[in-house]
């Protein structure tokens, strides 16, 4: 059994960590946090130069053609560094949708630009409150144009193009949904920036009024594609979450070693130790579930839907658990703007919702386990 990343993949992780520790220190994250920039453009360019944006994109479309295991190790580092760039929307959602369902021409148009850091993409799925569901999609497509509103759209205000989920039928079935590709710089697209709890990652509302759109994949297959994209993104985002959880644990541990109260390091108190031990437990469970997700993703295994849901749930829980308890270990200082704890807390709780909330994935996991048992 070799249930681990290869030495080459680990080396890539080390490279990504080194690059991000130099190019994306907390100070750089704060530039976006404080609203001085929509995202870190220099970092985005650097990530392209390192080959990280196109690591899983085939060489014929301008990528490195490495694979999803490589993308997983990079995702972990992106999460660890809280990189304030549209990585998850562009790479996990838009690029994955293109690779799954795009025509050769569509792939040729967008994938090389993604790999080169010249195009930002996103998935426009949600229409207000609620979890992913074909019923919730009202935005209408007809005659090659879209009409309706999407929100929240991750990184929508800075995206160049979007994969848009639209209604093309009214039978009440999944086949009513189709996907479209829209150039957001074209006509009939109105973008409004929204405020998110995570100030380092943008959200937007996008209104389409007779906006020109081309089909992505066959008509009526949209929901099936979305489900697959969400599963893939769930694994990749879970690695970001595990990276964030690990960093929050380290921050708490380091503070507990340095901070003296009652004449001793607070890390010598069992009450504090046990908080940190429980953080380690949740981060470890999440990491192991993520490894299984990575295996399923990289081999396109039949187990992917179940593995993705398990990774998503476990990593969401771990990041939320570690981020909130990192603040608790820090005490009052953890509740200041100056300390970085809140940036992880914000990211953890925003990431917990982006692909559908915890309860959505819990429900999905049990459905998928039952299907497997019935089979």
């Amino acid at each position, binding site marked *: 059994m*070799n*249930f681990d990343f290869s030495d080459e993949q680990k080396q890539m992780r080390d490279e990504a960590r080194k690059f991000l520790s130099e190019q994306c220190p907390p100070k750089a994250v704060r530039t976006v946090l404080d609203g001085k920039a929509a995202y870190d453009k220099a970092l985005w360019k650097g990530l392209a130069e390192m080959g990280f944006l196109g690591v899983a994109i085939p060489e014929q479309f301008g990528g490195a053609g490495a694979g999803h295991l490589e993308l997983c190790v990079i995702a972990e580092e992106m999460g660890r560094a809280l990189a304030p760039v549209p990585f998850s929307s562009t790479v996990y959602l838009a690029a994955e949708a293109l690779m799954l369902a795009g025509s050769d021409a569509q792939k040729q148009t967008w994938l090389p630009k993604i790999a080169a850091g010249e195009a930002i993409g996103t998935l426009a799925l949600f229409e207000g409150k609620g979890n992913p569901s074909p019923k919730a999609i009202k935005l209408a497509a007809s005659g090659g144009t879209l009409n309706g509103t999407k929100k929240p759209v991750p990184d929508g205000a800075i995206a160049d193009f979007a994969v848009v989920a639209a209604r093309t039928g009214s039978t009440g079935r999944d086949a009513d949904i189709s996907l479209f590709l829209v150039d957001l710089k074209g006509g009939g697209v109105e973008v409004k920036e929204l405020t998110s709890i995570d100030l380092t990652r943008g959200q937007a509302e996008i209104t389409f009024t007779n906006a020109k759109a081309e089909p992505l994949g066959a008509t009526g297959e949209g929901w099936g594609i979305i489900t697959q994209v969400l599963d893939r993104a769930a694994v990749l985002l879970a690695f970001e979450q595990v990276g964030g959880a690990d960093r929050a644990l380290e921050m708490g541990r380091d503070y507990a070693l340095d901070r003296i109260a009652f004449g*001793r390091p607070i890390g010598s108190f069992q009450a504090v130790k046990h908080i940190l*031990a429980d953080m380690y437990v949740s981060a470890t469970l*999440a990491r*192991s579930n993520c490894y299984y997700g990575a295996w399923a993703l990289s081999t396109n295994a039949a187990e992917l839907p179940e593995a993705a849901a398990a990774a998503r749930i476990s990593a969401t829980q771990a990041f939320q658990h570690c981020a909130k308890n990192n603040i608790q270990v820090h005490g009052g200082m953890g509740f200041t703007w100056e300390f970085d704890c809140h940036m992880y807390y914000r990211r953890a709780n925003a990431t917990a919702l982006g692909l559908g909330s915890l309860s959505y994935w*819990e429900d999905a996991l049990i459905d998928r386990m039952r299907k497997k048992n019935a089979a």
Partner: protein
Amino acid sequence: MNFDDTPQEAAFRAEARKWVEANAPKEYEAELSKSSLGRIRLERAEIVDVGKAWQKKKAEAGWACLHWPKEYGGRGATPIERVIWQQEEGIYGKLTQPFQIGEGMCGPTVMAYGSEEHKRRYLPKLASGEEIWCQLFSEPAGGSDVAGLRTRAEKQGDNWIINGQKIWTSGAHYSDYGLLITRTDPNVPKHKGLTMFFLDMKSKGVEVRPIKQANGMQEFNEVYFTDVVIPDSQRLGAVGDGWNVSLTTLMNERMSIGARLATGFPEMFEFCSNLMTDDGLAIDDPAVRSKLANWAVKASGLKYTSYRAISSLSKGERPGPENSIGKLVAGTMLQDIATYAMDLEGAAGALAGAAEEVANGQFQQMLLTAPSMRIAGGTDEILRNIIAERVLGLPGDIRVDKDVPFNKIPTKGR
């Protein structure tokens, strides 16, 4: 990343599988296949007798304690081969329960500190199950604080005279030998006055009394020592070095990788999949699904954590500290799952008879047994301390009794 064996591992697995297939006591397959929490019981035979027969057969073919050197009864197998063997032994591994303390703790301690003569005399018989060993560490006054133990050993010529009491001794009533830690010097701080021995459990003055547990069962014992004589030749390690010797024992306890920990999840998933409530199947209830999903990812997280450790062994590396989370996660899960399963049964959940139509009372037994899972082999709190100190590198607690002679440490709270 893959789950495949290397060619050597595959060959070893095939050999093990073939042997198990040809030799396992199939007449117990059905009973052993049923889930079990805690001690195994067989309907028509004593687990110790059946276990001894299986262990002997294994030893003759070189499958007992296979990671031990050949001269001491093993086959010199690698750590990954041991894991593969455990996987292939499967449910029949449950029959080895009476030997696990000997194999996991007593044997390695004798191997590290015993004389060559001792090793050749005792280890092969321990490996083959012919002689069973128990571990005599815990005391009424020293549980988590093992070094607080009070059983005295006093030197008299070439012998030591033992007086005192041990508790929570699994298998003492059927054991032939015991690993015993004693206090030989009460005038020095507690960790410094300890000495390790092994003794014949049939020695004069050894009295084993079963403990009736909170769940109504009797699986552990108290062991009383009254002027028991142990020759100095049965001392393991130097006089006063017993604490370090005991660390070897306990470290080996925690090394066992891939040991299957019962979490209760498979039973719970099946239960909820079949339980009809007034509103339909329990598993269709969103509240139930949420709980199940939370336990599902803990169970899979533990499983894949052990896979990561196995992968390290496969590469000839030492596994990381991840496996230290196992019992901490599983113990609480068992308790929570049992509580919730009974909640779903409503008022009838309080009925504990094995004849109850709902799940044969298995969750009720789980509930009553679960507290011990969070205590035995290191309490949840001790395990959290271990993770915090050894994995995360946090400082040890400030010990107020560290430099105090043992006989000056207070013995009552108020």
